[in-house]
């Protein structure tokens, strides 16, 4: 059980029935406020109060809650998801994505298009040749991120992507536009990135541990 510090007295929670029933409606019927017009006047007092308090109250206490967008920005929330991007480690040619196509298959509005790269001999390489996402179609559900077994696709925090065009340079993003470094991921989503890094390290150690023993006897 989560225990909350008892702030009951200060925050106004007294008795249940008192707080959770409408005192306005249950006002005694002989109240002087029953005069016709009193309710309207009371409403005017409320708006006047808000008018006055808008000058000195804080946003979360009933003051002005506008965020003056280009100058002020909303604090970034780590879990915020907007549009997907691809992660590379170190340099852009070391893409985490192996073009397995799971995200392409699971994407509900089908906004991802992937083809696998082939080497000179025509043998497929575990790397995407084409990785396009149509941002105009994407509905920011985050399923691609969830299903990706290689932790290579993540939801971005960038939302200023307005464009007058839908195709070409507009909303269809190619692989080179989608690629962002793992440092960027660390920056925008520190918790997730750390978790993934730890998982990877653990997996690598496990791999080493698994790979080493057979090496031993042969040497």
């Amino acid at each position: 059980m989560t225990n909350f510090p008892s702030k009951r007295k200060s925050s106004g929670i007294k008795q249940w029935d008192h707080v959770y029933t409408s005192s306005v409606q249950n006002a005694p019927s002989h109240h002087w406020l029953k005069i016709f017009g009193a309710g309207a006047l009371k409403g005017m007092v409320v708006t006047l109060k808000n008018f006055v308090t808008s000058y000195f109250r804080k946003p979360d206490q009933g003051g002005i809650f506008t965020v003056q967008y280009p100058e002020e920005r909303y604090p970034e929330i780590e879990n915020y998801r907007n549009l997907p991007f691809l992660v590379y480690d170190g340099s852009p040619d070391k893409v985490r994505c192996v073009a397995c196509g799971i995200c392409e298959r699971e994407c509900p509005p089908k906004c991802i298009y992937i083809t696998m790269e082939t080497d000179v001999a025509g043998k497929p390489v575990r790397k995407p040749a084409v990785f396009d996402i149509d941002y105009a179609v994407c509905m920011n559900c985050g399923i691609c991120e969830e299903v990706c077994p290689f932790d290579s696709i993540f939801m971005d925090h960038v939302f200023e992507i307005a464009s007058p065009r839908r195709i070409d340079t507009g909303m269809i993003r190619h692989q080179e536009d989608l690629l962002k470094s793992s440092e960027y991921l660390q920056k925008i989503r520190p918790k997730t990135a750390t978790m993934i890094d730890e998982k990877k390290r653990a997996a690598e150690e496990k791999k080493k541990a698994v790979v080493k023993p057979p090496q031993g006897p042969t040497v």
Partner: protein
Amino acid sequence: MNMPPLLRDIEFAVDLSFVNAKGWILDLLSHIVPDWVVVFASIVISGVAILVLGPVIMMYLTLLERKLIGRIQNRYGPNRVGIWGLLQPIADGIKMFTKEDIVPVYADKVIHCLAPIVIVIPALMVFLVVPFGERMTAVNLNIGLLYFIAVSSITTIPIFMGSWGSRNKYSLLGGMRTAAQMISYEVPMTLSVVPVIMMSQSLSTNKIVLSQSGSYDMNWFIFTPWGIVGFIIFFLCAVAECNRPPFDLPEAESEIIAGFHTEYSGMKFALFYMAEYMNAFTLCGIAATLFLGGWQGPFLPSWIWFLGKTFVLICVMIWFRGTFPRFRVDQLMGFAWKFLLPLTLINILVAGLCHFISEKTGWIYSFIIFSISFWVLVRLNRPWMPEKRHYPLAN
């Protein structure tokens, strides 16, 4: 008032600065040009002053309204164009001028285009009798008040023209609502003025103001029992006359979109708006003149008193807009005919009574009369009164 002579002189000079400025210009002109030009120039100066004043007032009233309502709703209001958004009205004006001017295909084009022009004329004409300050009435008509009521009643016709000319069903509904509302509210408004006319024994706005002087120039009509009731009724009717919330049925945007100006765009729309805001200003100004002593008031120059009172009333109008939902048509009419009208008639009687008895007994009597009549009227209007309801909480 016991003020040092120098201070009084200064006040006097400031008070009459606009009047004196006009006098100097005319003096200067009279040396150069023939007499009839001087007379003409006098009219032109007053006219130009009003023609400039009207739109400027309208522009900054919109800003004031948006700012105040913004604050009421815990927003900033316009604050991007200029400091505190002071250039916002100008930006709006530019936007209005550059917008496409749409005339519906099946509209009655002449009437459709004429309506916004016609609506501004009465709105500007009523400025003539508004006493902005001592000796600052453009035309001192001896039937000023009647003129004001008469001219402002013309406003229905351009609204009709707009609603009929645009051939839109929403506009038509809006036009019908306007007609009903304007006619209804003119009656209690005119009747609520009657006690003022009775007491000041004049229809001239200037004389009405002068009759409210007295100790500290504070002998305003609102400080009398009939004045307070008359003022409330007049103000409510004024709000209804200029179609502002909670009486904004003719342009109810959530019901009939924008009523009579649904089909207007660009500058034509702006003209409708201008007329509405100028009407709001003049009606508040007249309310201040009739009940709040107009430009009377101690210490400060007269025109500051007048503008101050007027803007307080306008702020109350804006406050109404920020608070109240809208009436329904039948309730609106009922409020005028079944509630305000009887109250105005009673008010006239009370005013007569107060005239003949001493002030103290007058207060007591009128308080009793008003409470009884208020109670009776509320009883009679039972169908609309809020019901007390019981809400069981089931398990």
